[in-house]
């Protein structure tokens, strides 16, 4: 391994290789952040829908989860990138009119967001179902509507309980951004591969990427652990209060 390669100039770029990797990392984190917001919102809605008493809502929500969990992520990327514009003409017109990078970014965020939402939905559902029936009934007994019961009683408890599995979903999401390489988004893995291909220093390039991904995984794990301690529910195993 000769790490000096990281400080050599990119042939057709304007900076050393480490800067190229850093810009890739930037896109990885941007995509992951927006996808996480989308996944959290959609996942919460779907997860809640699976715990309501309305049959049609449960059916729609579980169809969503099945659909997004039973198709490989890379195929989902291809569906959003090639198939959706191919069958919906207005999308096609929009795609042709925007910058390719914008289209890659939006596709990645939507694809990863909706994919991760299915997983978050399962966690939210499990979190709500782990609460005792008395919590929901207590909400109703206080005169809260169903929406209010979810908003003020069930969800605040459920989110706090499911932080550990959400941590692994966040880490999965960050790892999954590498698949955006398949549609040409210049994220970290794309830059790594490019560096390997142009310099033939595959070991240095992949080694650097491995270290970066491992550090991100470790850091997000720590952040979530702190959050977990902050918001732990007193009286539960694992709470420190």
């Amino acid at each position, binding site marked *: 391994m000769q790490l000096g390669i990281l400080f050599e100039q990119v042939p057709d770029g304007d900076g050393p290789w480490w800067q190229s990797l850093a810009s890739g990392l930037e896109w990885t984190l941007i995509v992951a952040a927006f996808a996480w917001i989308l996944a959290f919102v959609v996942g919460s809605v779907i997860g809640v829908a699976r715990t309501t008493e309305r049959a049609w809502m449960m059916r729609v929500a579980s169809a969503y989860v*099945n*659909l997004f*969990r*039973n*198709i*490989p*992520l*890379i*195929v*989902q990327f*291809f*569906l959003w990138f*090639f*198939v959706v514009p*191919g*069958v919906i*003409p207005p999308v096609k017109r929009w795609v042709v009119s925007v910058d390719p990078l914008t289209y890659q970014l939006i596709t990645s965020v939507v694809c990863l967001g909706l994919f991760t939402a299915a997983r978050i939905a399962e966690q939210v559902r499990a979190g709500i179902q782990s609460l005792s029936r008395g919590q929901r009934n207590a909400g109703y007994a206080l005169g809260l509507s169903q929406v209010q019961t979810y908003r003020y009683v069930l969800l605040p408890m459920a989110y706090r309980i499911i932080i550990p599995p959400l941590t692994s979903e966040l*880490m999965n999401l960050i*790892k*999954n*951004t*590498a*698949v955006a*390489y*398949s549609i040409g988004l210049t994220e970290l*893995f794309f830059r*790594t*591969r490019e560096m*390997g291909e142009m310099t033939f220093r*595959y*070991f240095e390039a*992949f080694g650097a*990427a*491995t270290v970066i*991904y*491992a550090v991100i*995984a*470790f850091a997000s794990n720590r952040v979530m652990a702190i959050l977990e301690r902050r918001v732990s529910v007193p009286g539960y195993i694992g709470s420190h209060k």
Partner: protein
Amino acid sequence: MITDLDFGEISRTLPYVAMGLQYTVQITVVAAIGGTIFGTLLAMARLSSMKPLALAASGYVNLMRSIPLLLVIFWFYFLVPVIIQSITGSDRPPQIGAERSAYITFIMFEAAYFCEIMRAGIQSIPKGQSGAAFALGLGYWPAMQLVILPQAFRNMLPVLLTQTIILFQDVSLVSLLNVTDFVGAATKVAQRDGRVVEMYLFVAVVYLVLCSLLSYGVKRLQAKIAIIR
């Protein structure tokens, strides 16, 4: 709506794409079996009282689980020939090809995930079981083989199978190394004939149907083998 879709493309290219699907299934089966064996050994190492062994195993598992699968696939693609060269001592790295290195990649990668499942399985067995085995005079390996592991496997079988369904989907990533797996085969004919929409829709539907059926099967199995305690 667009009217120039040609779904006849699917039936025309079916034999080629089916070969890709066969490769995907082969990798899945080999990696599931190899990964379970290697993963179980890793789990035993992680739970071992020999500190260096436990540390090495957990280091391996944590590293594998913290980097993207895509990166692992490319790592092994470049590493496997070099490792084989250093073992056999030949002058040049052998030409393995992405098709064959993928088998090793997925065994090694899945082992990390199966290890965590088996570790949970072993830890879910009450202490009395290993105590009883040792009291009967069994050593570590016979106790593991005859008492602990069969129960751990049974408890964890649904989880192991669910992980295998995920593996079945994850194999699709090798298509980015130009391997002709299911997705790779579809990509090749789709690009040759300009039938991207039809081929990817077909691939998505096949995966959706197969994985839904498999998940349903696992659910049924889970209900069937659940031990009533």
